[in-house]
């Protein structure tokens, strides 16, 4: 069986990155480097109002005073922030009115990814706001959504068309000075998605953005702002891919979610950015700040993530449970292989009464990768009857990888109940043996077991994503047990 395992490992390590194609389209880039002029230039290029520029500059001033966080269980090579292009937009020929006007190269890229930017969009029922290298290329279904009063547009359009909403909520969940990468993003963010669901509206379709990092040496700094007004509901999907590149690329995004009274937001991510090759060369640095606030009573925010890509992941989607009876959820599958490193988890801040949170995290590490769960559950003094349940499981495939769990539990209240449990183990030999003796090969058996292991989280994904996530899991890992 050992031999069989070795073979399987080799197969997996030789598995090339499936989405590594490079779209050769003209891009409009600014020179490398970061300074006030660059920020002003970005702001001018995007025709932004003065208050936004001020906001950016303030964040930049703060960022200069900050230091890169070093507490994560990661080895991050030194990043030269002056050696990054902070803005790269696909060159546009005026505004686009119909799909036909979209650059054919660009459309091919999306087709390869299976993004329904053409007729298929009606069949799949997915409204996509595709972000390629910082500028929203096309927003579909806007009209259908507009009828319901839903605003779903690129961030820059939202700044133009709905400045009041943007001004009111921008930075309200993740302040511009929140952390090093959030400050960097606030200073230089190029584009992103904006979504507003009005009172009492249930968004009839899954909203989706697709991020791709395309041009070499460009950092992707997108910003997503999602607001669900009273009694609104929305399910939002985010998928990420990046072509193969040798140099590491920086991605520092910010996602902010605001859920008002009785609103519900479901945010799902499938991240399969280029993880670098088997020697750890290249790959994306994914340093993302995601946070939602359950501002109103009885509101709910649910994060689901499937993380299979990126060379280094630093990401903690969090919930601030401010409204009474609000609910926060975090479901995560994080897979690392080869030289990948991931330090990911969540924060649940219980502020309101009867707030509840659930954390289910499944880590899978293979190759020489390091996979850490880091989570904070904080129960504030007034969070009476708060309830938290956390479960963090790690699966080790191979004896050169690492799986770590760093939970922080801070309880300031005697009426709350907090439970945390974590296990770490390898794939059960008995289970493999059972499959073997039923005529299922080791590789297939492991694939089955891993899929079963992650099922609890995959089940939380919307249909379209669940299928993709399952495939990704297979590509990244199938049978890699040693």
């Amino acid at each position, binding site marked *: 069986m050992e031999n069989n395992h070795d073979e399987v490992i080799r197969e997996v390590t030789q598995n090339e990155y499936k989405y590594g194609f490079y779209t050769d389209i003209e891009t409009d880039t600014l020179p490398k480097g970061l300074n006030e002029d660059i920020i002003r230039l970005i702001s001018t290029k995007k025709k932004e109002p003065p208050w936004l520029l001020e906001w950016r500059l303030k964040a930049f001033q703060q960022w200069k005073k900050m230091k890169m966080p070093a507490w994560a269980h990661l080895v991050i090579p030194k990043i030269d922030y002056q050696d990054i292009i902070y803005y790269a937009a696909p060159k546009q020929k005026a505004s686009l009115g119909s799909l036909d006007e979209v650059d054919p190269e660009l459309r091919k890229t999306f087709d390869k990814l299976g993004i329904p930017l053409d007729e298929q969009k009606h069949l799949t029922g997915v409204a996509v706001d595709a972000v390629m290298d910082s500028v929203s290329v096309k927003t579909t279904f806007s009209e259908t959504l507009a009828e319901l009063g839903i605003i779903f547009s690129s961030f820059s359009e939202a700044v133009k068309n709905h400045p009041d909403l943007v001004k009111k909520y921008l930075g309200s969940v993740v302040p511009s000075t929140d952390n090093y990468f959030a400050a960097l993003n606030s200073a230089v963010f190029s584009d992103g998605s904006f979504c507003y669901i009005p009172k009492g509206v249930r968004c009839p379709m899954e909203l989706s953005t697709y991020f791709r990092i395309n041009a070499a040496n460009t950092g992707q700094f997108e910003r997503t702002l999602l607001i669900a007004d009273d009694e609104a509901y929305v399910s939002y999907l985010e998928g990420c891919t990046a072509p193969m590149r040798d140099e590491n690329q920086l991605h520092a995004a910010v996602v902010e979610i605001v859920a008002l009274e009785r609103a519900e937001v479901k945010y799902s991510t499938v991240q399969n950015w280029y993880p670098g090759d088997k020697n750890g060369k290249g790959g994306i640095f994914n340093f993302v700040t995601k946070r939602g606030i359950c501002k109103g009573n009885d509101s709910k925010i649910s994060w689901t993530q499937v993380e299979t890509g990126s060379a280094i992941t630093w990401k903690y989607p969090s919930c601030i449970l401010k409204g009474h009876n609000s609910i926060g959820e975090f479901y995560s599958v994080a897979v690392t292989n080869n030289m990948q490193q991931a330090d990911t988890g969540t924060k649940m801040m219980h502020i309101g009464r009867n707030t509840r949170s659930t954390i289910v995290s499944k880590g899978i590490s293979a190759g020489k990768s390091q996979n850490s769960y880091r989570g904070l559950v904080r129960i504030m003094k007034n969070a009476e009857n708060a309830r938290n349940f956390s479960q963090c499981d*790690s699966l*080790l495939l191979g*004896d050169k990888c*690492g799986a*770590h*769990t*760093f939970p922080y539990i801070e309880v300031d209240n005697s009426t709350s*109940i907090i*439970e*945390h449990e974590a296990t770490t183990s390898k794939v059960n030999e008995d289970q493999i043996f059972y499959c073997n003796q039923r005529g299922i090969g080791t590789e297939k058996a492991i694939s089955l077991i891993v899929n079963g292991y992650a099922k609890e989280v995959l089940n939380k994904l919307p249909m379209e994503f669940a299928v993709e996530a399952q495939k990704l899991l297979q590509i990244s890992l199938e049978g890699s047990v040693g």
Partner: protein
Amino acid sequence: MSMSQEYVELFKAKEQLLEKASPSFMMNIREEAIHQFGKTGLPDHKSELYKYTSLQKLFEPKYNMQLQPSNVEFRVEDIFNCDVPNLQTRLEIILNGFYKVNGTALTRLDNGIIIGSFAEALRKYPELVKEHYAKHAGFEKDSLVALNTAFAIDGLFIYVPKGQVLEEPVQVVHLPMTGYDTMLHYRNLFIMEENASAEVIVCDHTLSPFRFLTNSVTEIYIGSGAQFHYSRIQNEHLNSNLLTNLFIHQEADSTVRSNTISLHGGLIRNNTNVLLNARGCNNETYGLFLSDKNQHIDNYVNIDHAKPECTSTQLFKGILNDQSTGAFNGRILVRQDAQKTLAYQTNNNILMSDEAKMNSKPQLEIYADDVRCSHGATTGQLDENALFYMQSRGIPRQEARLLMLYAFAHEVIEKIQVTPLKDRINHLVDKRLRNELSRCNNCSMACGDLPIPD
């Protein structure tokens, strides 16, 4: 002058005194240690290890550093006797950080076992001490250990040669007793050679109402196949602060069980570091704390699985009352070599008051794949349904609560294998839960219930 610099200056001022008490190899280590401390200083709240315990504040008041044995006119052991009925123990007293000589400073038993003053052992058996001293408690990354290494002069020394069994459990009473605010550093070294076996019970008590800060380091070497049981009862007053640093080095097929019961005290921080350095080690680390008033109790456990086929179990429980705060930080490190590791860690806490606060940080850091590791942590309160059930059976609510707390605590206490000691601790915990004086029958002291100075 910065705080760390003050200690460097103090070291210089007391250099002659320290030099007199240490052979040259030790003086070199002292100098390295104080140099290290001067460089790093005390960890602040930004340090992951001291995130929930502020050492800065603890070291702020002025203390007198105790660097010489105290003279007392009476026989401490006559009036002070931790009473464990039906348990014959060998009583050793560490008074203000120095071994209290009762007859001889160092006793050599017929079977070669040596027990007594650490300072005396250093004089009589320098080679034996040198082999282990500062080898298990590294001060390079630990400021408290560095400070202790620089200043600690005496403590308890136990040496059990190959295959020998220490028949009588050793009861060590650590006793600060001065007429002023005092900082104490003492150092214990226990060496268990191959297949040796011993049982040590440590009691922390206070005899005077002043402010104390004790920073102790205990190094324990456990040879192959050796067995060692370690129990610690911490029962002091609110102004008596304890920083304990326990370092256990285990060789193949050895077994160590340690229990730490914290009943009373000011700020208590127990650091337990275990290195499982060869195949087949078994380590069990248990802890129970009951805190009230503005007490702070922090247990840190680091189990380093360096070699394969070792087992470790941790169980820590806490009951917090009033405005007390607690912390648990347990880390299991499984190195790449350590295949077939079994490691478990549990931390359960009950918050009895809204002012109480508990921070828990159980951690797993695993680099080997063929392992089974798990941890669990809960923080909550007593089950209302269970209380109601008992009330409906005619048990008063107060009594029902006590019963449940007692049952909660019992899980840790029952791990103590010496029955008389277990009974005694059960009794003390029961009293403690009832807020009664935890006074030993034969002792004229009222530990833990002294008037608390401001």
